[in-house]
């Protein structure tokens, strides 16, 4: 079985490649083939000496035919080289920026993901247990309202309430800038602070995480509410649950067994939700001035730095691909019916 699982992981992992290729092609097409010279966009003026323009184009590899550019970049990408920045500071490797920014987004998404799953399960179970009552309807409305919350607005309202009015929590950044004793190792500040046993820094980092993760997590919890509630209703009507109840198993335990059974489809949803989570992260990061991949893309867009944007998109694609691979593997392990 272990060998079978290994094969399954490899085959499923290979399926990420066409996805990244297709997204790379789409983004390449949009950024390079559409009219407009990126160098001119970067320089911001058309009055640039032709020799200098030529030189800059050569540096960026834009003087080669398109198909050569396409395969050049692809070849570099295979070696983990995402090209150099096209705008100030010019000529720095894009991957070094991404290495700085990606951990911030990973940290935010892990916390937001946890919030969304916990909230979604809690509200979903509540709806299923109180099925048909006003509580059930309330949870149903919650799932729609949460789903249509506009991230920047919700974030701002939390900033206003907990930051401006109550002064409980910080409204921007990842850590209090006055904490100078802190040095990042992995880029995941929570882990860094624990490694360094810097408890003041850990406190500050966690405080900064609260509002962004609640904002993003609440918006994503709605989909789980719906699914958990419906699955629980199904499972609770099955014979084995009736048998438990007939034998006098405490209701809490019955619910726990039911939840375990209702959980498998939720794993699939987690994979699908992850793409939405990353999209939402861009808005969350902008709202909370969070120095992650989303704000990185927005910064680079102001400079028309197409290489950085392309690189970021590829990293996002890889991220989504790996997550969906992980989810599929977990699903295969949980559900004995999946053959691999």
């Amino acid at each position, binding site marked *: 079985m272990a060998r079978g699982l290994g094969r399954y992981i490899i085959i499923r992992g290979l399926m990420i490649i*066409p*996805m990244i290729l*297709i*997204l790379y092609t*789409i*983004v390449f097409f*949009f*950024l390079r083939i*559409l009219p*407009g010279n990126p160098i001119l966009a970067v320089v911001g003026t058309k009055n640039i000496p032709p020799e200098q323009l030529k030189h800059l184009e050569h540096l960026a590899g834009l003087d080669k035919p398109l198909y050569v550019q396409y395969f050049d970049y692809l070849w570099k990408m295979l070696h983990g080289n995402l090209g150099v920045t096209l705008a100030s500071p010019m000529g720095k490797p894009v991957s070094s920026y991404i290495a700085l920014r990606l951990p911030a987004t990973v940290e935010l998404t892990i916390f937001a993901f946890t919030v969304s799953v916990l909230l979604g399960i809690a509200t979903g179970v509540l709806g299923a247990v109180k099925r048909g009552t006003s509580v059930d*309807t309330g949870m*149903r*409305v919650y799932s*729609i*309202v949460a*789903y*249509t*919350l*506009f*991230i*920047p*607005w*919700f974030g*701002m*309202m939390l*900033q*206003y309430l907990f*930051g*401006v009015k109550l002064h409980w929590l910080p*409204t921007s950044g990842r850590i209090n800038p006055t904490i100078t004793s802190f040095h990042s190792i992995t880029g995941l500040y929570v882990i860094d602070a624990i490694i360094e046993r810097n408890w003041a820094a850990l406190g500050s980092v966690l405080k900064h995480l609260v509002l962004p993760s609640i904002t993003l997590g609440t918006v994503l919890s709605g989909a789980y509410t*719906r699914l958990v509630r*419906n699955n629980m*209703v*199904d499972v609770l009507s099955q014979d084995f649950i009736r048998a438990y109840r007939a034998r006098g198993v405490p209701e809490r335990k019955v619910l726990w067994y039911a939840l375990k059974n209702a959980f498998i489809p939720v794993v699939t949803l987690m994979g699908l939700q992850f*793409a*939405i989570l*990353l*999209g*939402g992260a*861009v*808005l969350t990061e*902008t*709202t909370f001035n969070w120095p992650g991949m989303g704000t990185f*893309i*927005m910064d680079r*867009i102001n400079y*028309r730095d197409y290489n950085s*944007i392309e690189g970021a*998109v590829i990293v*996002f*694609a890889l991220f*989504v*691909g790996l997550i*969906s691979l992980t989810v599929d593997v977990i699903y295969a392990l949980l559900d004995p019916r999946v053959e691999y």
Partner: protein
Amino acid sequence: MRLIDYIINPLRERKPGRGLLLFGISVVLTVIIMAIFAPWISPYNPTQIGADVFAPPSSKHLMGTNNLGQDVFSRIIWGSRIILYVVAIATTLSILVGVPLGLLSGYRGGKVDRALSMIMDSIYSFPSLILAIVIAVVLGPSPVNTAIAIAFVYVPTYFRMVRGQTLSLKNQLFVEAARAIGVKDWETMRKYILPNVLPTVLVVFTLSVADAILTEAGLSFLGLSVTPPTPDWGYDLRVGQPFLLDGYWWLAFFPGIMIMLLAMGFAMIGEAINERLSLGTR
């Protein structure tokens, strides 16, 4: 059953989903009326700069004034035009591209189907907002370009649904019968398959319009949709953020709540129709 019946019938029946549907329809209709009659409803010129800056909500300025002394209520009313306009174009475009492609791909099958499905799945699995951002940046800030960017990321939603339905429909007896008596392929698709796919398209439409509204608002919040001084909910929300932290909450509060109400309205209509077709909840 006509398409409109999917909305009218549940309205007539006293069933639990009716409240949601009523709420959804009234919100959406209100916003549409606001957009159509903006010149008559709006008390002030939405771009008129005034001396009365940061005035809190009062009877003179229902939602207060912003940092430039513009009336927030008038900007809300005029802002409904942009968001509805962009989302209408975007949704029409993605249906016009996604539905025929889905029909063709599902009906014909083969290599074209496999290639198309792979491309659509790749786009579908990628964070739609990020892709829309990239496209919107390249095309430049304008409502039509924003609509194209949104349309692009929602084509796969329609494509996948229609393709799946077509696959199961094409093996049914009535389609086989049509083919057996020599009805041409495109006519089979148009007359026999398309009408059966349309109810699903309606559900996907109402559910994805809510998403499209949030995507539009996201793009304009990020400054990629319209240029000032055009009144626009997403952009006004962004402009209001720094002032919110100074305590002037009405600049950001109202545009944001409108975005959500509109998205919620469509989501609730979608929910009710979805239930009607019993594709989802129990």
